[in-house]
């Protein structure tokens, strides 16, 4: 890529120089049939514009590629950070949670250095201290699920906030359901996006 980038404008430059004139003395001018100075200038400007355009196209293509990669990484990151929810008083992985967790697996496989922090949470109902343990159990359920797919457990650190960090601060079924969750944060490593990812 890099070499091509440099070589292409160089070639164009030689062509342009060649067109400007040779080493032979010019024949006597019968009449000014050759290109006028204005025409030459226009041609040069035209060539320069073409070169610039080509350079821009190259940069655009590269930026597009980078953007695509970065978008894929962002998507992978957000897939990894997608939280999962739980039923009341339960730490069992639901069908919905399983679908979310399964999407994380290819990313964790292609990014072997990535480590995740799994943070368990409970809704406000239930004992304060017991909810710390419940949050912990939820985080452990997630870790067990992921390690069942070959993700090394030591890449997955668990901790619990119990009922102390609600997402939604109100007391109704919808808020409670949102608050019963495991959150994911990337605590280290680099996300590598594989070609076949995106399924």
């Amino acid at each position, binding site marked *: 890529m890099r070499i091509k980038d440099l070589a292409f404008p160089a070639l164009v430059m030689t062509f342009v120089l060649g067109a400007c004139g040779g080493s032979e003395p010019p024949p006597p001018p019968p009449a000014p049939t050759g290109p006028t100075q204005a025409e030459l200038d226009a041609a040069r400007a035209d060539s320069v514009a073409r070169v610039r355009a080509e350079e821009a196209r190259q940069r655009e293509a590269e930026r597009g590629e980078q953007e695509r990669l970065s978008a894929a990484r962002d998507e992978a990151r957000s897939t990894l950070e997608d939280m999962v929810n739980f039923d009341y008083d339960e730490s069992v992985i639901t069908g919905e949670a399983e679908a979310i967790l399964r999407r994380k697996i290819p990313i964790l496989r292609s990014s072997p250095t990535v480590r995740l922090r799994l943070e*368990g949470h409970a809704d406000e109902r239930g*004992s304060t201290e017991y909810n710390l343990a419940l949050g912990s*159990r939820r985080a452990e359920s997630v870790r067990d699920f992921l390690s069942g797919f070959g993700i090394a457990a030591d890449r997955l650190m668990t901790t*619990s906030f119990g009922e102390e960090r609600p997402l939604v601060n109100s007391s109704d079924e919808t808020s409670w359901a949102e608050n019963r969750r495991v959150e994911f944060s990337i605590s280290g490593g680099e996300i590598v996006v594989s070609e076949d990812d995106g399924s």
Partner: protein
Amino acid sequence: MKSLSSKVGTMKALLIMTMYGCFQEVGNLDAQVQDSIPGVTLGLLYESEFYPALAVHPFRGDRDAGEIAREIETIIANDLRYSDRFEVMDSIPLGLVGEAIDYQLWDQLGAVWLLSGSVQRQATQSVGFILTLELHDIVYGTIHEQGRFWLPSTEDRDFRMSVHAASDQLLQWIYGEPGMATSRIAFSRRSEDGNQELYTIDSDGENFRQITSYGDLTMSPTWSPNGDKIAYTSRKGTGFPRIYELDMKSGVERALPSERQGDYITPVYNPNGREIAFSVTGGNRSGIFRYNWLRDCCLVHISGGRWDDLSPTYSPDGKFMAFNSNRLGTPYPQIFVMAAGGGEADLVSPYIHGREGYYTSPDWSPSGDYLAFHGRVARRGRYQILVAQIADSGRRLRQLTREGNNEDPSWAPDARHLVFVGTRDWGTGLMVVDTASGKIRMLLRGFDVRVPEWSPSLKESLGVGSLRTRQ
């Protein structure tokens, strides 16, 4: 004689008013048996005990100590009222009863005990005051006990505690039982940013003090056996819950080393003061561990496995431990008791297969006879404060609350009162229930508080209440 009877009439009217005032805070005591936990009989039955009337003769202060004498009188009268053992008659104008103590008058008014006191300002700056208390037995017309107490100056942060120590001495004189006046309650409070810091409040609801400022989640305080230290769990620094110990006098903090992964939560001191027990969750091995603070050594696994053994509490002799656990394999925690070193555990909370309740947060009474905890009565119901007798393995439970939501009971050093977190229509606060009468008192209102822990008597660790009796 005529003057005495008219005096009695005025006094009676006055006393009825004062006593009526005291009953404003009393909850519903008349409720009878309630069958809210399937198959378990919960009682709200209280013996209608007779509480002797204790009158307080206006305290006198020499020179310029008059105002302080009245302040001390109020502190002591409230302590005696909160002890729930007397009908207290106080704030009586001196003009009504006169300087001299008239046993006949007090007898007519129905007083069984009379307390009089005087306060002398000490010449030396450091000493503060000398409080002299006289406890009169009205029935026999004699002085029952007399004592002198040294109090620091009113600016001293232990001034009120020194007065509380005198109140506890009165209870000792009358009943030979420990009081709870010389004690504090530690708890965490949620701030607007969602963090929690530790606070303490005196047993009479005064001296609301902030203990930590870590800007993180700091919770579950526990007092050392003589009250000179507290231990707690905090996420500060490491981002994981770890156990810390704070010396209340020096402010020196030490951290328990983290030898294994997981969250370190729910600490409790062993009554020997040398060890601390706590739960580890989410690590390679969950369960209850203990650690020796004195030798600064060794995490020893006591119990647990895939289930969560949580919130341990020791019997006062240190031989047993109660905790809550999911070891029955249901999502509903139950209360168990086992030997302090581990081993087989006995179920204490009521359990009917398929209709399990939810019981957590046990606290062993200082007398050793009872376990207090809270329980969810219906699957989506609210929590109530329950007390089980150790001797009958919890077959009979007493339910101490009925309204709102009630969690995390902790015994007072008098082995009679419990503090807990109560949530009502108006919000959350700390409440105190007298387990003998069922009376509920508001301690701290309108703060989002968690997991209170009542201290032991702080007499020894604060060095207050030094006393010289008459002989």
